[in-house]
């Protein structure tokens, strides 16, 4: 099995690098998702709005710190996976001068701008939204600096990845506020309205996520066969499987649990919360597989 031999040569340093990368992806997507969630639901009740903003801001700081930790980890990896290479000025400089450096600067600037989500929307109308949305776009641009999507045709590949990431961010950023809302007593009208509206937006967002992801995968792999024969393809299939499970849960929420919540079924809040929590675990697994996929394997085989 190609995926097994890809994992066989992995040392502790590489594992650390992949974990930090997955954490960075989670933080950046959570931060971007918080901004998108607030844009999609301008009428959120005050406590929910504050909770989303706080989560987004904290996630952005975590992502900034992890991006900074990635830098010496990458230098250390290049030097053979050791601490002295991690602080070797030549290797640190080489990483920073290249595509990884551009990515770090764009991600850092974008995630700092995301902090504008904390600005009071009533006193400074539009400023918080504008700045934080600008931050999201910078953070998305950071993602397309490195890897195969930085190749030609760059606009197409980068554009598809950004669409894929925006949809993923919206989904990930929605989990926590939806979990909170699902904790309201069943039939709470404000919560029911938001949960229902989320279901309708999510249908479009998930379609975009899957479509952009599938087109990207076929473009990068150059066909369907490599999906089965290369380690990259096999990890991608694992990711697809996890996403399929996520979609099942999302469908269960939309068509069974949210209507039950709106009807006032007293068991619905608990079941909905449990389902959203499982979605969170699956998202973490998807991000872990993505870190392996983009970190130690390549569509070239």
């Amino acid at each position: 099995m190609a995926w097994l031999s890809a994992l066989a040569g992995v040392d502790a340093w590489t594992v650390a690098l992949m974990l930090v990368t997955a954490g960075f992806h989670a933080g950046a997507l959570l931060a971007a998702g918080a901004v998108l969630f607030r844009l999609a639901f301008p009428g959120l009740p005050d406590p929910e709005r504050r909770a989303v903003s706080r989560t987004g801001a904290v996630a952005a700081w975590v992502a900034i710190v992890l991006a900074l930790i990635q830098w010496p980890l990458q230098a250390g990896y290049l030097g053979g996976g050791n601490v002295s290479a991690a602080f070797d000025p030549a290797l640190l400089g080489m990483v920073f001068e290249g595509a990884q450096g551009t990515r770090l600067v764009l991600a850092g600037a974008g995630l700092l701008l995301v902090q504008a989500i904390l600005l009071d929307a009533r006193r400074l109308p539009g400023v918080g939204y504008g700045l934080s949305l600008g931050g999201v776009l910078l953070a998305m641009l950071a993602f397309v600096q490195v890897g195969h999507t930085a190749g030609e045709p760059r606009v197409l590949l980068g554009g598809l990845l950004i669409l894929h990431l925006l949809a993923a961010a919206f989904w990930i950023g929605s989990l926590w506020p939806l979990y909170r809302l699902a904790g309201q007593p069943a039939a709470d009208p404000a919560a029911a309205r938001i949960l229902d509206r989320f279901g309708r937006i999510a249908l479009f967002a998930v379609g975009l996520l899957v479509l952009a992801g599938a087109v990207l995968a076929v473009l990068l792999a150059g066909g369907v066969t490599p999906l089965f024969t290369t380690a990259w393809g096999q990890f991608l299939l694992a990711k697809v499987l996890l996403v399929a499970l996520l979609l099942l849960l999302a469908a269960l929420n939309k068509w069974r649990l949210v209507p039950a919540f709106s009807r006032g079924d007293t068991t619905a809040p608990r079941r909905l919360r449990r389902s959203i929590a499982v979605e969170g675990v699956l998202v973490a697994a998807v991000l872990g597989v993505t870190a392996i996929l983009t970190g130690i394997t390549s569509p070239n085989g």
Partner: protein
Amino acid sequence: MTMITRNTLLSGLAALLLAVATPLLAHEGEMGQVPNDGSTVQGTPEEIGIHFDGAMRITQFDVTGPQGRVSLENQPGNESTEEYRVRPAGSMEPGSYEVRWRGLARDGHMMSDTFRFTVED
């Protein structure tokens, strides 16, 4: 979204896929090794190295064998290169050798691989 716009979008995407349905090789792939991976050479090889189909900055290149790490001459720096070649500083004992390398591709991907060869008397 109406069915018509959805169908137009889908056919547009399908056309796009057909137009670019060739493998995209954004970053440099490893093209070959000297000595070839898995090969057997008579006596100390003159050169040990790798070549790529694009520029790569090699950051680690270690050869280990029965006597441990092999000391190498002419080890180039970290500059971009398609051909990375080094010479063993002394003669190499018969036995199996392993080369581990790491490098940074132009698109920021960090690459790493290993190849092996055997030295015979």
